[in-house]
């Protein structure tokens, strides 16, 4: 039995298999509409999330399975003080696989230690969000045709943005990736990503505050939202929340085949005028999220 807690819990070859299966599903989703009949996915969401939870649930329903779970800590026994360990022990007897989102970092790892069913981390605080990373990789692979030889810009909240950390760690395993990290000083990537992923693997990267200057170099622009819930100080959030806004003027400096990704939800950081640009693929990316979660559920449940 395998758990997915970090995006690097899958080797590169396992990841390639997952992406290949996702591509098969994209080609003919109906072929897979019954492969999980009689199986149940539990979605344990201790933190509000519309997109990720519905994406997991849609994925399981698309495979012919059923779903159960809760959408906030208030509506679970966590409100009564139950530990993650006890909750997962019980849920293990109700479902075949579970996806867990928790505001505290490491909660899904704790769950995996006490679970008798596969655990998928659906986001833990500012830490990891592996299925978003798989979604991002599938989007790039499907639309660019490759996961090598890319200049990838990350823009916005690189400090608390778990999707950024996870995607950098995942892309670090592919060849000839050049990273451009665009953020204000206060939201630069954590030291451990800089030292232990980028520098330790001798990966080319630059850090800048200037989005305009970076635009022409990019094959991929990964925009992120400055997340209110990650700040202890409201003043800092207000000062930084609108620091980058991608608009048509900035897009004019980008390559014709550049892709703009965003893990969503978007607030102000991408102007709605960009939505009609064919390079804006963030809504397509959300759709790919369902396909890659279908593939992941199939892999973890070992169904063909």
């Amino acid at each position, binding site marked *: 039995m395998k758990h997915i807690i970090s995006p690097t819990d899958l080797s590169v070859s396992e990841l390639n298999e997952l992406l290949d299966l996702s591509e098969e599903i994209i080609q003919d989703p109906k072929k897979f509409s019954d492969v999980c009949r009689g199986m149940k996915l539990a979605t344990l969401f201790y933190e509000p999330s519309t997109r990720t939870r519905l994406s997991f649930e849609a994925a399981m329903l698309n495979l012919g399975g059923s779903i159960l779970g809760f959408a906030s800590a208030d509506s679970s026994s966590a409100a009564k003080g139950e*530990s*993650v*360990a006890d909750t997962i022990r019980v849920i293990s007897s109700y479902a075949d696989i579970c996806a867990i989102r*928790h*505001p*505290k*970092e*490491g*909660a899904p*790892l*704790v769950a995996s230690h006490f679970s008798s069913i596969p655990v998928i981390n659906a986001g*833990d*605080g*500012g*830490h990891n969000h592996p299925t978003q990373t798989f979604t991002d990789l599938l989007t790039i692979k499907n639309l660019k045709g490759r996961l090598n030889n890319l200049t990838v810009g990350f823009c916005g909240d690189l400090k608390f943005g778990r999707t950024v950390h996870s995607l950098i760690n995942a892309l670090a395993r592919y060849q000839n990736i050049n990273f451009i990290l665009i953020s204000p000083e206060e939201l630069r990537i954590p030291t*451990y990503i800089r030292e*232990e992923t980028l520098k330790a693997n001798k990966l080319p990267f630059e850090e800048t505050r200037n989005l305009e200057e970076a635009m022409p170099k990019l094959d991929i622009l990964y925009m992120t939202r400055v997340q209110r819930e990650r700040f202890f100080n409201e003043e800092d959030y207000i000062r930084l929340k609108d620091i980058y806004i991608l608009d048509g003027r900035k897009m004019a400096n980008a390559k014709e085949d550049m892709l703009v990704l965003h893990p969503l939800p978007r607030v102000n950081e991408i102007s709605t005028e960009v939505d009609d640009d064919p390079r804006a693929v963030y809504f397509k990316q959300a759709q790919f999220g369902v396909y890659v979660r279908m593939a992941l559920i199939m892999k973890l449940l070992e169904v063909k």
Partner: protein
Amino acid sequence: MLNIGGLNQGIVIDHIKVGGAMKIYSYLDLENKDVSVAIIKNARSNKMGKKDIIKIEGTMDDLDLDILGALDHQITINIIENGVIIDKKNPKLPDHVNNVLKCKNPRCITSVEPGLTHSFKLTDRANGIYRCEYCEQSFDRR
């Protein structure tokens, strides 16, 4: 230099980062052990500028010296018998330590679930960096 008498039998934990002696005193539970202890704070050091030292007179058979390396990777340990140093040790850093270091990240699951083992793994041997197994935050020795 403050003068503390030499030991006949015991250990000297030397080159402790300034301010770290009480943490080691506390971890070793020296308060409840039947040994004589001298804590020297802010001692002059050629190597470190200033350092703390703990001298323990008596036997401590159950002492895991390598664990001390996780608390402070620079420390050295002198074993004294019959008034002379018979062994000098640099603790080897263990790959994993459980319930020795405590994660200080307020976003970590260990901050809200007190029953969990505080588990750390060594990720950078040269610099003695340990990271929490759950949230991956490095242990802050300050």
